[in-house]
């Protein structure tokens, strides 16, 4: 009933150096042809734009609030050396246990050890992108633990055997009739086309599982250094239940999630909700400081937080792009991105899709294999405009392109640029070259030259103008 999410089509480890790029190009080409799918995704996002704008209008100054949010994250990320130990000391003082994981392998090992120590029989999970990043579910299933995703979207994706399509809206690409069929097959529910009924089917199915689970696994949106609390943002209440009923609570969180104090949350929580989902605040924003305390009616006996590096320190070491660690994973940059809307979430082949994913994936998984994502952009800057913490997303795509050109220069590209410089410096040669192209454009079309082939596959070449721009300019002057 719980197929592995790792084997799914969306995530591929690049063993062949150009495997990821080839797959990206093939998937993108296939996806853009699927106009029904694109229309469906655009329609699903329509409501988001309206509610986001309504909520933004309630801010007395959204642009300046973005300043404050970026300041909060900038001051925290640049003081990680101080704030991380401060968080750990406070969290441990509350009775929680902290584990450190250098990479995905170590993090999986820690979680599996904790499950073994807890003699876990049933594990319930709430949405956690860091666990997708380290392929935790597959590792747990290999060791024989049954694990159920409780977030509705993640649950649907788990049943489908697919990773999330969008890191905030995991199943935004799935139609209701597909969900109805899926639930019919796995849960034996009668067919329905009502989103409400489908939600209630999942609700009824999940209730028993919360009560029976002995371990609950969550992520974390912010780590508050001042108080040692972990802040979890959600809408459904599944994270609340996951952290309330099982005997052990494990939170898997990236080290960059630290903020200095509670005051910072008074800015970041509303902005996360508004930018991410067009809400004033998401339905549940909950701070956990450790296991049940004396005098409290319930709560887990143990709480563990696993702090994950997994190449975040490599990104931290690049001051130019360090602000990519300010990301609060609201997903706003995906929702506005023309590339995301046309190629879809799976085409990226990454845990984090869209513009921010294209920026950070080369740092997390290698620039040589993932630089092609920097080219998957029109550089329109919609992502940078949408980012509530003002990450310079589209410039970072340019920075990645530059870095890739430095580390793995392409001879062909270099030769081409040299040729262009030589021509552009000599006006007579430029004019002659232009004239030649104008007169031989039909030939290029006929010959289907390699450089033009991809472009010509779906487009016609415009007719060549009779006169060059320079000639027209001269005639007018």
């Amino acid at each position, binding site marked *: 009933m719980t197929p592995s999410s790792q084997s799914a089509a969306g995530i591929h480890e690049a063993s062949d150096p150009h495997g990821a790029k080839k797959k990206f190009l093939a998937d993108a080409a296939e996806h853009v042809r699927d106009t029904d799918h694109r229309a469906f995704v655009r329609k699903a996002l329509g409501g988001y734009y309206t509610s986001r704008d309504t909520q933004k209008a309630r801010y007395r100054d959204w642009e300046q609030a973005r300043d404050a949010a970026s300041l909060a994250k900038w001051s925290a990320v640049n003081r990680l050396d101080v704030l991380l130990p401060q968080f750990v000391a406070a969290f441990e003082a509350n009775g929680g246990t902290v584990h450190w994981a250098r990479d995905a392998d170590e993090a999986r090992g820690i979680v599996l050890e904790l499950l073994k120590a807890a003699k876990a029989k049933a594990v319930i999970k709430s949405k956690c992108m860091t666990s997708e990043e380290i392929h935790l579910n597959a590792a747990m299933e290999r060791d024989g633990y049954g694990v159920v995703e409780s977030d509705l979207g993640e649950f649907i994706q788990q049943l489908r055997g697919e990773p999330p399509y969008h890191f905030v809206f995991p199943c935004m690409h799935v139609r209701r009739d597909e969900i109805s069929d899926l639930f019919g097959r796995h849960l034996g529910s009668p067919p329905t086309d009502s989103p409400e009924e489908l939600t209630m089917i*999942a*609700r009824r199915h*999940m209730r028993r599982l919360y009560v029976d689970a002995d371990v609950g696994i969550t992520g974390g949106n912010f780590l508050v250094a001042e108080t040692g609390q972990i802040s979890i943002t959600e809408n459904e209440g599944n994270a609340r239940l996951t*952290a309330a009923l099982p005997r052990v609570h494990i939170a898997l969180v990236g080290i960059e999630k630290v903020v200095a104090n509670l005051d910072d949350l*008074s800015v970041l929580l*509303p902005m996360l909700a508004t930018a991410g989902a067009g809400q004033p605040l998401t339905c549940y924003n909950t701070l956990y400081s450790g296991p049940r305390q004396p005098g409290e009616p319930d709560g887990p006996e143990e709480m563990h937080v696993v702090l994950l590096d997994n190449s975040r320190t490599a990104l931290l070491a690049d001051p130019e792009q360090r602000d990519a660690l300010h990301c609060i994973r609201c997903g706003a940059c995906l929702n506005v991105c023309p590339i995301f809307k046309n190629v879809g979430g799976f085409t990226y082949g990454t845990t984090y899709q869209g513009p921010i994913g294209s920026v950070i994936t080369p740092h997390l998984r290698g620039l040589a294999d993932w630089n092609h994502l920097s080219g998957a952009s029109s550089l329109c800057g919609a992502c940078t405009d949408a980012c509530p913490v003002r990450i310079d997303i589209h410039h970072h795509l340019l920075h990645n392109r530059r870095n890739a050109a430095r580390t793995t220069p392409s001879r062909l590209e270099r030769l081409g640029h040299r040729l262009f410089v030589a021509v552009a410096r000599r006006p007579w040669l430029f004019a002659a070259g232009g004239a030649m192209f104008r007169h031989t454009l039909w030939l290029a079309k006929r010959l289907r030259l390699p450089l033009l082939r991809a472009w010509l596959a779906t487009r016609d070449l415009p007719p060549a103008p009779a006169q060059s721009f320079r000639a027209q300019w001269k005639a007018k002057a």
Partner: protein
Amino acid sequence: MSRSNPPPSARDVILGRVREALRSVAPLPHMRSQAAVSAAAAGPGGLTILPAEAARPWLPDGGETLGEQVGILIGNLEKLRAQVHCTLDLEAAADLVATMARDRGWKQVAWHDHPAVAPVASRLPCESHRVDESGFEKNRLEACDAGITTCDAAVAQTGSIVVSSATCGGRGLSILPHVHVVLVPIDRVVGTLADALDQMRERHAGRMPSMVSFITGPSRTGDIERILVLGAHGPKELIVIIVG
């Protein structure tokens, strides 16, 4: 493995990488307001104005006077599709909840053993379970039609109800039953999230409850075709009764 030369722990390795990485200085984020730029001039460790303090006048309004705050709170709760009632005293609130229980045919209700809840629970016309620090059976709580708690604060700015595991019946009571009834003493209404967090810090100086939750409307999801559905996993209904 020799005792004198143990391998560095993961903690030491990661903190070492962090310190090494931070030796190079990151540029300031792009900011538009002069206030934010000058606040950042002293470097990440020496901000002259805290981000939250700077943001106060820029975030959504929470109202100045209690009257304004209550008005904004009610407006926001209604937009969130919570049900809001105002009563003069606990007596009236008890009448209201008793009527509600009869009309809806509630069979079992769980309530938190708290002076602001007990008078309401005592008038329930159905089976009722008191939740106190000795805990409860989660199976029985799951079977309850409603859970009744008070709150630490109600935030006008966002329409949020703040509950904690120490003061509002633990973690399960406000999330597991199908309906959550919250009694809000009117003096618990605050303007903004920042105010609520300040209060939290004062009230629980030194030791925060193990869970503090900001509840903003009944549980919801938009996961199916981005269409809003209430009652995903938590309460389908949030009933807020402002008392006083």
